[in-house]
């Protein structure tokens, strides 16, 4: 309830200030490459991007770019344009933002950040690991740009928290990786450079490992040195530059700063009272929501989206199988409900979580599945309260600010009452 300490201004980590330079450099590089006639491939998240680098194809990420557009608060006209072109209102807003740009007609198009995605793409690479929408979206792009499209299929992961994919599942993905290599050889008319591929895998493994270290450091530290809003900006280089040296250097520096801050017990906010877990993709058009709670002494210390959608280690002693295992086992969207609960329960303990905020995301139904079941399980089995907010990750049209603020305020009041009553912490 009521009036608490104000959050600190500016970034909690000095390293975070480098994120915008990395973002700008990435876009300059990719536009320059396109201009120089180098092949550009549109990749979806969790697609085997290291194979693109092995064939000297530079990846661009329409999903990630849609998040950039939403952060710039210009998503709405693009979403509306896609709907006017008969794409369903129910379609993922990442897809609608991209398709709104692709099919834009007439005046009034917003000025696209960083000059827009380089067009046309020369090849399309996607996977159905996060969702089937990716595949249908890429099929539309294939029809528009008349370029080849490559798809990596993957089964859903089942089992318990420590389980790995079955050998059959790994075989299935390895076979496809080999098939993709053959397809890319056909496309580029060059022989596969395995050494380069393994080098990119090594860089991805290093970046993924550092990212996990960072998440552990900030999650385990009391007080946490950095909140969600800042980390949502810091994930960019892992999303768009995996397989390169940039995220390795960036996250190494960030890890060192975090080690110092955790050792010195320097918190992101002056008086950390409640530690929150955020579940699902953030509201890119309203990242303030993640830091507004800091006014009341609450801070998001862990996000399933940042940990279980991006990053992940690769067993380089057996690179193809190691890579297949990483692809299969590190994506929250590709896990069944029991496994997601088990993982959350473990993380709640490890990161000293007081409460969970579920974002029931209209765009990402696969991610948002089973929230009321998870909510009940967390309360009954662990005594951890949670709240469900309803919104969309990139389309602001259905978002109710007053409703969401009230839910979050009331949730913090609930945590305060529980704390006062001595039922926890």
């Amino acid at each position, binding site marked *: *309830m*009521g*009036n608490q300490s104000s959050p600190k201004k500016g970034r909690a980590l000095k390293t975070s200030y480098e994120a915008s330079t990395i973002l700008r450099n990435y876009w300059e590089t990719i536009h320059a490459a396109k201009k120089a006639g180098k092949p550009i491939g549109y990749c979806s998240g969790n697609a085997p991007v290291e194979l693109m680098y092995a064939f000297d194809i530079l990846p661009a990420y329409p999903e990630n770019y849609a998040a950039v557009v939403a952060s710039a608060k210009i998503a709405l006209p693009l979403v509306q344009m896609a709907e006017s072109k008969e794409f369903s209102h129910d379609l993922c807003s990442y897809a609608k933002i991209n398709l709104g740009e692709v099919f834009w007609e007439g005046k009034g198009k917003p000025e696209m950040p960083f000059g827009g995605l380089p067009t046309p793409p020369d090849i399309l690479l996607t996977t159905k690991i996060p969702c089937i929408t990716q595949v249908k979206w890429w099929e539309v792009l294939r029809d528009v740009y008349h370029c080849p499209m490559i798809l990596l299929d993957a089964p859903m992961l089942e089992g318990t928290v420590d389980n790995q994919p079955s050998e059959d599942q790994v075989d299935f993905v390895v076979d496809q990786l080999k098939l993709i290599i053959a397809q890319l050889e056909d496309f580029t008319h060059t022989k596969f450079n395995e050494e380069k591929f393994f080098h990119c895998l090594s860089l991805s493994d290093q970046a993924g490992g550092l990212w996990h270290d960072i998440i552990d450091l900030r999650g385990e530290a009391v007080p946490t040195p950095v909140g969600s809003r800042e980390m949502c900006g810091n994930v960019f280089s892992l999303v768009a530059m995996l397989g390169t040296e940039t995220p390795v250097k960036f996250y190494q520096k960030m890890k060192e700063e975090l080690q110092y801050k955790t050792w010195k017990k320097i918190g992101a906010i002056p008086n950390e009272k409640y530690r929150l877990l955020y579940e699902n993709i953030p509201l890119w058009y309203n990242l303030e929501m993640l830091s507004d709670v800091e006014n009341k002494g609450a801070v998001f210390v862990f996000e399933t989206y940042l940990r279980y959608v991006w990053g992940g280690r690769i067993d380089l002693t057996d690179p193809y199988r190691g890579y297949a295992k990483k692809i299969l086992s590190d994506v929250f969207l590709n896990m069944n409900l029991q496994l997601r609960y088990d993982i959350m329960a473990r993380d709640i303990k490890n990161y000293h979580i007081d409460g969970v905020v579920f974002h029931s995301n209209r765009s990402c139904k696969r991610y948002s599945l089973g929230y*009321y079941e998870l909510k*009940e399980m967390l*309360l009954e089995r662990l005594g951890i*309260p949670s*709240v*469900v907010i*309803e*919104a969309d990750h990139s389309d602001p049209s*259905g*978002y*109710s600010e*007053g*409703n969401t603020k*009230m*839910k979050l*305020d*009331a949730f913090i*009041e*609930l945590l305060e*009452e*529980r704390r006062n*009553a001595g039922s926890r912490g």
Partner: protein
Amino acid sequence: MLVAGVDAGSNAAKIVLMEEDQILSHGVLKTGANSLGAVKDLLQHILEQQHKKMEDISDIVSTGYGRNYIPFATFQATEIFCHAKGVFRTMPQVRTIIDIGGQDSKVIYLDNNGRVADFVMNDKCAAGTGRFIESLAMALSVPLEEMGPLSVSAGQEITISSTCTVFAESEVVSYVAQGFPKSDIISGVHHALAGRVVSMARRREIRREICLTGGVAKNIGVVRWIEKELGESVRIPEEPQLTGAIGAAMIALERARQQ
């Protein structure tokens, strides 16, 4: 010790003035576009009635959608907590509160000590809120306060199936055109609202006793349908619309006593 609770809701401002544990005075005023103005006017009016001045008030706590925009409030709390406090004051046996306000509806689950154990709210649409009834009352040209009494004499059951308030309005207009009596249509409207709210309440275990708060609790048609849907009778505070403001005043009293 004089304190005030201000509930700056989406539809109306509600203020309760408390002297120690007793409610001294209260008032409700439609907010319109200028909610802060309405709150100021209402507070001034209530104070004058009691021959009191602003300086006499030891603490003011605000709640409701406008809670953060009341400059003279010293503390803000959400309606969820204020309703819990307001209900527990007079009905400590209540374990589930269903609050249907102008802009949202909430179900608040209390523990045995009257503390909020959990809550659920409607999502961003107007279905399941007071606005749903207001909008359909306008479509039927029936004053809002007559909706409840009129529906009691309904003869046959009419189903309003659309969850969208605008589409529900089309359904209502269509029933009017087909010559259905207004009382039947209004009962159908109340049934639709009750169905939505009760299905939301069922996301968790509904423990007895159940209390209905918020302005819509004054509508006998909605109350009857909610009871029918729940299969349980519900309790209604004397002034259901004031529950949030009473809770806010109680928090103000606790704060004033601690100072």
